């Protein structure tokens, strides 16, 4: 790659050889450690880079449209860990699994490494930036009015520049996001006459009803939703909110519901209107203008519509009464799981329901104006123009329509009609593969930018390191093209994209009356942006509210099953499929890795004699897909589902050809306002072929072993322990103690054992690290799993080794089912399982070389360079949380430049060595070193593990159990606390807090 920076030296490449960095890259080498190494100093000492000490930069996550705030931890000028920015209103310090995996899009080995253009022979060739920009400027200005840009960028300075730039040339911009919530936007315009998306306050809602909206996975801002949901739905001071999910398939959000109703697909709107009708009929508290809807709603009385919805009339009435009596409540709709032809009407119905129950303004706040694209209709219109040949130059920026739209929509063919196509994609995806000029954009962590995800939030992005490859921010490309082309673009002059951004922010500073700009700029950058309170605007019913129709849509095609694709919470719309972390992180619902699947109800599978792993073919009018079957009790018997995001044809080595693309089954959206994902019926065919499913699930039933405990709300209110609650449920008789000897045994045994095992605590003056995990708050989203991978250099082992159960994730989320047979409602419990750091650890006495031993501060130490690899410790661990390096996974898992992400504080394990969760001992030692320099002891909160820091539900609390005032000590004293496998007397340091159940009666 040629050098364009004037310093003549690529600072980051040489920084890594400062003799310091790359500490994590060279693995634990076997024999000699005295290889000749070079120490290459700076030319000029940089102020913000001290070798060995991390530097944190505030930035913004670009993995989805929510725009969460980031704190990027860098060591020796390379980003190694992403964490949430505590000051940011959207995610308040938390980050989902996709956000954590942003590093793997930054360091992805499949990234386009420099500008390329199409050669005569059809191949692509590298060209220098200057020529690329000259060619781009010439073509764009020549196209003039026949220029079109498809941009997925969020609202911000770049989008404004792009709009101005394109307008200057007379072209048009279509802002397009695959999951763009078009039905909600249309519904808000129809019912309230307000365009835009409201913000939802899950924290204060006491009763939440979701009509197929998977708000914990891909709906609007999942981290913000999950923070609120965990705060209200998690058991706190004697109460918890209730959540009812109504959808044909139980998504991860459905699993976190207290009740899930497998309703008839498409019947959600009718149920919402029927609930509104019951509320209007029985209560008078509705707003004045809502009363006018009584006429329209009369047709949706529960008795009339109940039979076509899968619910009984009483159930609808019960739901309605509880919805209106719980002040405030919240109904949400518009998720991918229920995006069928009638989705706009469904969202309108839910708007009416919220309005009638008085939630609009309390839990549903308009005025937040969340960022949304122009919707599919605009893209369809552009497609028509492309097919008509009216477009001369098409620029595709941060979007992949060829993959994200069903093949039957013919977008690829439309692109073929455009003579000249430009793409700024980071990775050569399906759309970029068809383009003639590639101007690879710098990743969000390598460029200046800002985003306005919602009203009141202006979130800044700053380059935390030198660009990994020869890429430029697209803003820079536009400005240079403007300078090169001149003419109408002459007005868009700026020294550089950074200056342009600063100029715009000077305007913002002036508007806020900030004094001198430099200090304002530095303080805003450090805070990550400007955060003002989101304005709340009152809304009234618009006349359109009267014309809402609740009839269920007609599904095209014949076939006995309805096909309902599900959006994966890890792969989103398929942009996550090129990241090994997200592919190996088991899907939160099915626990399958690296493969796509077809969900089928066990009884339907029995009826069709389908075993798990048998490859099924689904055939619809528009196409067919093949994938292994996965028996899933959380789906209707007449519905089949498959995940979106798989079946890429060109998206790098990890994603290409992996799994089947669910969109192939869908018909062309035609002139619909949005892509109706749930729209086609399919025929099920067996292919007689079999493929073992790469899932990390052993048995999904806990066989009454008390791994995932739960208790009723009543029991929790009375302060019972899980054991007492079980005891009460199982007949409640007092346990009659027969003999005095039994009394002594119970009393004597426990005391004697406790004295014997106190040795784990040495003199008791050291900290004793411990953790509590609140199963009432854990939603099973697996953000902690990816955070652990990022912090501890855990290698991804690939599909073949996951098939043999050899995945290396130190923390796994166990998903146990309860009930679900013979009509009983299916209940799901999540248990994050990691090393329990037992005081009486069974893995320690069996290790022949003291590789596993107990540290004075209560950790179960695992010394990698002392481990010989007999693996007895893993056999003897009742929790099975010790993982073995069967191969040299560190060599396969970190190809250049993924190895730049390795954390230099954590040893990269070699082959033949056992590894396990260490309670992030490098963070503990780092904090102890820092505290020792300041001559003070550790305070509660100085140290937190990577998983506790990332958990959006704040379910994991880490700290020193010996400190009575610490958060972990207080929450460990919670009566709901229990230890897993208490009877083995291994005395784990992790206390789980039992989940609290609220059945229908609460």
């Amino acid at each position, binding site marked *: 790659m040629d050098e364009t920076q004037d310093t003549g030296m690529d600072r980051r490449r040489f920084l890594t050889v400062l003799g310091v960095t790359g500490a994590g890259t060279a693995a634990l080498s076997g024999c000699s450690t005295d290889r000749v190494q070079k120490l290459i100093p700076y030319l000029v000492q940089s102020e913000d880079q001290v070798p060995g000490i991390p530097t944190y930069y505030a930035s913004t996550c670009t993995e989805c449209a929510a725009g969460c705030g980031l704190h990027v931890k860098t060591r020796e000028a390379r980003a190694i860990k992403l964490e949430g920015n505590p000051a940011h209103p959207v995610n308040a310090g938390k980050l989902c699994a996709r956000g954590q995996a942003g590093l793997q899009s930054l360091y992805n080995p499949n990234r386009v490494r420099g500008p390329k253009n199409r050669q005569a022979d059809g191949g692509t060739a590298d060209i220098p930036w200057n020529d690329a920009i000259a060619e781009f400027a010439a073509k764009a200005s020549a196209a003039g009015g026949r220029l079109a840009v498809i941009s997925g960028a969020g609202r911000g300075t770049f989008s404004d520049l792009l709009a101005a730039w394109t307008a200057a040339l007379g072209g048009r911009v279509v802002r397009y996001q695959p999951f763009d919530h078009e039905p909600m936007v249309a519904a808000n315009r129809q019912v309230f006459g307000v365009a835009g998306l409201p913000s939802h306050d899950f924290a204060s809602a006491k009763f939440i009803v979701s009509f197929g909206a998977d708000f914990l996975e891909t709906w609007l801002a999942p981290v913000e939703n999950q923070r609120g949901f965990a705060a209200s739905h998690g058991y706190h001071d004697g109460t918890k909110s209730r959540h009812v999910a109504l959808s044909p398939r139980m998504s991860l959000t459905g699993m976190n519901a207290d009740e899930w109703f497998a309703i008839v697909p498409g019947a959600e709107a009718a149920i919402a209107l029927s609930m509104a009708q019951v509320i209007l009929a029985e209560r008078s508290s509705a707003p004045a203008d809502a009363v006018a809807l009584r006429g329209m709603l009369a047709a949706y009385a529960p008795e009339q519509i109940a039979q076509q919805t899968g619910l009984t009339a009483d159930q609808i009435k019960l739901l309605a009464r509880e919805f209106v009596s719980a002040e405030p409540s919240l109904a949400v709709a518009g998720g991918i799981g229920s995006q069928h032809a009638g989705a706009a009407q469904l969202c309108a119905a839910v708007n009416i329901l919220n309005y009638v129950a008085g939630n609009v303004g309390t839990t549903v706040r308009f005025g937040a104006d969340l960022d949304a694209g122009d919707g599919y209709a605009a893209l369809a219109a552009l497609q028509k123009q492309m097919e008509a040949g009216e477009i001369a130059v098409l620029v595709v920026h941060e979007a992949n329509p060829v993959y994200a739209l069903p093949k039957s929509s013919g977008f690829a063919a439309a692109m073929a009609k455009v003579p000249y196509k430009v793409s700024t994609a980071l990775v050569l995806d399906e759309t970029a593969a068809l383009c003639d000029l590639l101007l690879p954009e710098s990743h969000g962590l390598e460029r200046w930018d800002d985003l306005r995800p919602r009203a009141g939030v202006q979130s800044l992005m700053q380059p935390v390191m030198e660009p990994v490859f020869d890429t430029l921010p697209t803003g820079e490309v536009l400005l240079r093209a403007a300078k090169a082309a001149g003419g109408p673009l002459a007005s868009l002059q700026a020294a550089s994209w950074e200056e342009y951004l600063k100029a715009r922010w000077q305007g913002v500073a002036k508007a806020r009356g900030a004094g001198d700009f430099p200090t304002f700029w530095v303080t805003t950058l450090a805070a990550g942006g400007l955060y003002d309170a989101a304005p709340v605007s009152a809304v009234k019913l618009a006349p359109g509210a009267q014309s809402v129709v609740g009839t269920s849509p007609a599904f095209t095609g014949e076939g006995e099953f309805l096909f309902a694709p599900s959006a994966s919470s890890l792969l989103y719309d398929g942009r996550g499929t090129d990241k090994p972390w997200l592919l190996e992180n088991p899907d939160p619902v099915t626990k399958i890795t690296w493969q796509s699947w077809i969900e089928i109800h066990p009884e339907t599978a029995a009826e069709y004699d389908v075993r798990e792993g048998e490859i099924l073919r689904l055939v619809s009018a528009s196409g067919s897909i093949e994938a292994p079957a996965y028996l899933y009790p959380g789906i209707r018997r007449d519905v089949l589902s498959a995940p979106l995001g798989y079946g890429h044809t060109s998206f790098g080595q990890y994603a290409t050809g992996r799994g089947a693309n669910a969109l192939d089954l869908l018909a062309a959206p035609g002139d619909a306002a949005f892509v109706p994902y749930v729209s086609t019926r399919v025929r099920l065919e067996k292919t007689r072929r079999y493929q073992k499913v790469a899932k990390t699930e*052993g048995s999904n039933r806990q066989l009454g*072993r008390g791994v995932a405990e739960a208790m009723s709300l009543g029991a929790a209110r009375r302060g019972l322990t899980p054991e007492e609650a079980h005891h009460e449920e199982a007949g409640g008789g007092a346990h009659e103690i027969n003999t005095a000897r039994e009394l002594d045994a119970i009393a004597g045994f426990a005391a004697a054992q406790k004295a014997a095992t106190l040795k784990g605590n040495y003199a008791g003056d050291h900290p004793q690290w411990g953790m509590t995990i609140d199963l009432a708050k854990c939603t099973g989203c697996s953000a902690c799993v990816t955070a652990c991978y990022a912090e501890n250099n855990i290698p991804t082992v690939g599909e073949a080794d996951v098939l043999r159960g050899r995945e290396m994730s130190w923390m796994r989320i166990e998903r146990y089912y309860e009930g679900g047979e013979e009509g009983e409602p299916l209940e799901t419990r999540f248990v994050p399982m990691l090393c329990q750091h037992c005081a009486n650890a069974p893995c320690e006495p069996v290790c*022949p070389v003291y590789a596993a031993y107990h540290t004075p501060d209560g950790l179960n130490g695992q010394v990698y360079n002392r481990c010989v690899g007999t693996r007895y410790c893993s056999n003897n661990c009742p929790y099975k949380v010790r993982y073995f390096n069967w191969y040299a996974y560190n060599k396969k898992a970190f190809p250049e430049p993924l190895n730049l992400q390795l954390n230099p504080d954590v040893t990269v394990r070699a082959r*033949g060595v*056992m590894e396990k969760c260490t309670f992030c001992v490098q963070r503990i030692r780092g904090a102890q070193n820092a505290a020792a320099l300041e001559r003070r002891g550790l305070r509660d909160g100085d140290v937190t593990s990577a998983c506790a820091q990332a958990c959006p539900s704040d379910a994991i609390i880490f700290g020193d159990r010996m400190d009575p005032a610490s958060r972990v000590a207080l929450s460990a004293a919670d009566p709901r606390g229990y230890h897993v496998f208490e009877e083995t007397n291994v005395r784990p340091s992790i206390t789980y807090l039992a989940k609290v159940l609220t059945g229908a009666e609460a």
Partner: protein
Amino acid sequence: MAHAYTPAQTHAEVTRDVVATLGTPSRGYVMMLAGAVGLFLVGLFTFVMLLKEGLGLAGYNPPVMWSTYITTFVFWVGIGHAGTLISAILFLFRSQWRTAVYRATEAMTVFAVMTAGLFPIIHIGRQWVFYWLLPYPNQRYLWPNFKSPLLWDVFAISTYLTVSTTFLVVGLVPDIAAVRDQVSGWRKKLYAACSLGWTGSDNQWRHYTRGYLYLAALATPLVLSVHSVVSWDFAMSIIPGWHGTIFAPYFVAGAIYSGIGMVFTLLIPLRKMLRVEHMIVDYHFDNLAKLTLFTGSILFYAYAMEYFVAWYSGNPFEQVTFWRRAFGPMWWAGWSMIICNAFVSQLLWFRKIRTNLTALFIISIFINIGMWFERYVIIVSSLSNDYEPWAWGQLNPTWADWGILAGSFGWFGMYFLLFARTFPIVAIQEIKETIPFPRKRGGH
């Protein structure tokens, strides 16, 4: 005993017959040796691949972290125990019938334990630092963990290998001297060197007999303790199905049972090949079979006791483990273990079977298949359904597992056949001891 057996040979005939076994190898012997070396090379290739690629080649499926390598390790240590039992414990009991078979079984012990000794190196993740298991002084001030059963294993196996080798060599010295005096040329020089200048003088016999007695006295507790220590590899854990107090006697009985099975498998063809049918006769096999019946019945009791204890203990983890061992995904291994070990051994109640050598040979094959499966079932089925239901998983072995197993048989067979050809497989001086010297005044 029914009848005291005295071999119908004179001293000279004994010497002549045993020296004859050391002559030029027959075609059958060479073929068997080639087969053994071939199997060994398969094992060697597999081990080199494990060293190069990693243990992942084998079929390990976490949570099953131990599979066929540990099974084969316990299998070979078990086979080693019958030899020392017959040569040491029966020596203390002055039993007559041990004299003809004890040298072959003692050699089998040494080579079996040599084979087993390889596995603490083969099965660990970092094979090249196995010496960390030994308490050698090092600059890091680090010592091994003596509380770990694996370390007891290292000491037990190395002690057992040393003592049984010493016991074999001490027993061999007089015989080598006898052979030295019968052969000539380069073989005489070889045997002269090996016989350490043994002349059979009264002074030497005086110390030799006492020394041999004490070695037998020391080897007796050793043979019972080594397989107990090997069983504590499992019994010291908290895994349901492993931590049972019955494990020590259960494993020792199983060891002797499988050891004598291997004795039958080796001796029945060997005596035909080395033409010593008249020295190792039905009387010996009858008594060996009785011993097999005895230990087989102990196994029968042990299996029943394991299931009873699991049921009676009311511990849900144990009950599920044993239920799945009999009816779970590994039911085939569980039942083949019980049939081969418990039921096949009951056939030996009938004298006709005990003295029918082909029947004994077939039964011995079943014995060793059953015993290999017993360790496989104990190890793999208990690990695959442990405490944590989420982490349950099934093992399916790969070529690397079977490669090392074949290699171990090759390694053992190669040494045993070489030994049978170079050193007297039947103990000359012990048999002569049972034949009374001719008397001038007649009568015995």
